[in-house]
């Protein structure tokens, strides 16, 4: 081939040192290109897949609800994730909470977005097609303020999505406003009703502030859930350091990020011992080490929330890190990797 002095090269020569970079693609493009082809037969067999009921996920890493949008499809190779998870969809339209809706505090963030929603019809009309266009199964998160509100939403979403995640960290307006998910009986009602309207996998996402996570996880399992997700953000009340007034318009928001990890680790450990169905860990996962910590206490998959805001590629990095660890150790699965580690 004859080298051609193209336009870019001319510009480079003219415009000084910074232009040396102009020819390079952005780091995002390089990240896309660096991804492993999980179907490449020359890669030794590492099986990262995980089953959630009838659904098999390619990899055990997915975003946390509310911390992902189809917008990310252009920024990260979504195909490397096990699934995408939507923001929670409610039965009726909701506007969400007043400003401020989020803030950062040391080792965590607190959000009181309040789950704005356009209802199932709005979701199907505007958001779902964009999720469906991504190369990963869509787990649709569903919420409600009465145990009776979940099944109609799932029914309305009908054949769309690959699985449903029931966000039961919502105040139960039929009772005293405590979370539906803090009451095993309410969890049972929700799951049993949803089970009647769908054969797709049901994941129940439990809250942190419960008397017994084991009892809540067992209630979900007994009522027919295919997995539990442990856990949601922890209700908290950040104050402005100067004015001492609540920062959030809603006064209270959910604390997420690194500072909740030791708390959620215990919950995942307890839940894993209480049920046979897979436990999906969610709370402060930002690195492959965090993921392995959760796998080591019994999780089958992890969700990445807060970490994605600062590092949109965090979840993909975790997938790649898991793969690399397995390849380096010469093992075929995360279980084997952990057994090897434990034997050291």
């Amino acid at each position, binding site marked *: 081939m004859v080298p051609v002095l193209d*336009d*870019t090269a001319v*510009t*480079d020569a003219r*415009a*000084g*040192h*910074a*232009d040396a*970079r*102009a020819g390079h*693609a*952005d*780091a*995002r*493009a390089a990240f896309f290109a660096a991804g492993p082809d999980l179907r490449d037969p020359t890669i030794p067999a590492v099986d990262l897949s995980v089953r959630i009921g009838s659904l098999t996920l390619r990899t055990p890493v997915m975003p946390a609800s*509310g*911390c*992902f*949008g*189809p*917008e*990310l499809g*252009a*920024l990260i190779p979504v195909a490397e994730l096990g699934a995408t998870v939507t*923001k929670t969809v409610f039965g*009726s*339209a*909701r*506007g*969400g909470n*007043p*400003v*401020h*809706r*989020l*803030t*950062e505090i*040391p*080792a*965590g*963030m607190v*959000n009181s*977005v309040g789950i*704005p929603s356009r209802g199932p019809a709005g979701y199907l009309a505007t958001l779902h097609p964009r999720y469906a266009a991504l190369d990963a199964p869509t787990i649709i998160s569903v919420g409600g303020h009465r145990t009776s509100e979940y099944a109609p939403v799932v029914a309305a979403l009908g054949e769309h999505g690959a699985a449903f995640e029931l966000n039961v960290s919502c105040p139960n307006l039929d009772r005293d406003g405590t979370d539906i998910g803090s009451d095993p009986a309410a969890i049972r009602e929700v799951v049993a009703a949803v089970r009647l309207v769908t054969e797709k996998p049901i994941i129940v996402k439990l809250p942190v502030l419960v008397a017994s996570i084991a009892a809540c996880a067992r209630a979900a399992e007994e009522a027919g859930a295919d997995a539990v997700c442990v856990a949601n953000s922890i209700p908290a009340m950040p104050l402005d350091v100067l004015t001492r007034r609540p920062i959030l*318009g809603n006064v209270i928001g959910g604390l997420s*990020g*690194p500072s909740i990890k030791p708390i959620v680790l215990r919950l995942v450990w307890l839940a894993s011992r209480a049920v046979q169905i897979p436990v999906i860990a969610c709370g402060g996962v930002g690195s492959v080490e965090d993921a392995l910590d959760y796998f080591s206490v019994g999780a089958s998959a992890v969700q990445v929330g*807060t*970490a994605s*805001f*600062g*590092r*949109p*590629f965090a979840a993909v990095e975790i997938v790649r890190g898991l793969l690399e660890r397995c390849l380096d150790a010469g093992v075929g699965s995360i279980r084997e990797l952990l057994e090897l580690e434990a034997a050291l």
Partner: protein
Amino acid sequence: MSVRPPSAVPRPQPVWDDAEVLVHEPVGERYRRLVLASDTIARTAQAGQFLMITVPPNGGDTILLPRPMAIHRRRPASAARPATTDRPASPGTAGTIELIYGVVGRGTRALAMVTVGSRLQVTGPLGRGFEFPPGTRTALLIGRGVGICGVMGAAEDAAALGIRTTMVLSGQRPDQLLGRSDCAELGTRVIEATDDDGSSDLPTLTARLLADFDGSTAERTPPEMVMVCGAGVLARLAAELGAHWGVPVQASLEAHMACGLGYCHGCAAPVQTDPSVEGPLVCADGPVFAARIPID
């Protein structure tokens, strides 16, 4: 305040990049200038768009959320910059973007520690910026403090499009005003308004601008467009002037943000009328909105 009707100009696809820090220096007592090498963003960013900057850990202190920052100046490297641009590229700055920020809290304190030569992860360009309707000939731009960075991109576009602009630079003291040299470079007429001599005072400034533009010479016809960055008093000023002159007003807003892309819903603007409908998202529907009513 409301979302403007869709524009004919498509928005650039945001990317994230590990941008080298070329310049990082104090600007006066209160601000810092950051010049980053990112031709992709310099080339595609529209006036008034912003970045999300991932702040590196400050010692043991990890900053989780990226910080939104306006793109103060775009200096694309290649000829692929808007066709109308004919200002000379200063050598060594081509393929770069410039930001100016104030150190206010944990995140910006940590950002201030970043050293020249290191890399900063940025995502952008983001949001919907300022747009001049085709045929615009004159515009009044208004900025205060770091808000001046929010409208400087409009001054850049105006210069490239041959639109005559006046920029109100507001701040507490004359030595704290940003953007003087940028306006000089871009040929933007400047009106300074500071707190110390009362010239930024709302009635005073309003009277001055009205007198300035409602004069009888051709030079002094009212602007065809008012663009402002920031809520509060200046946005009210812009809205009042726009109403007085009967011209459109575009206002850039701020909000606490997590994703900057439109999916976390952290940044909804506080203009909900119906509790079942969310306000527009500052990061995706804005940060620039059509301002019809004064904003507090």
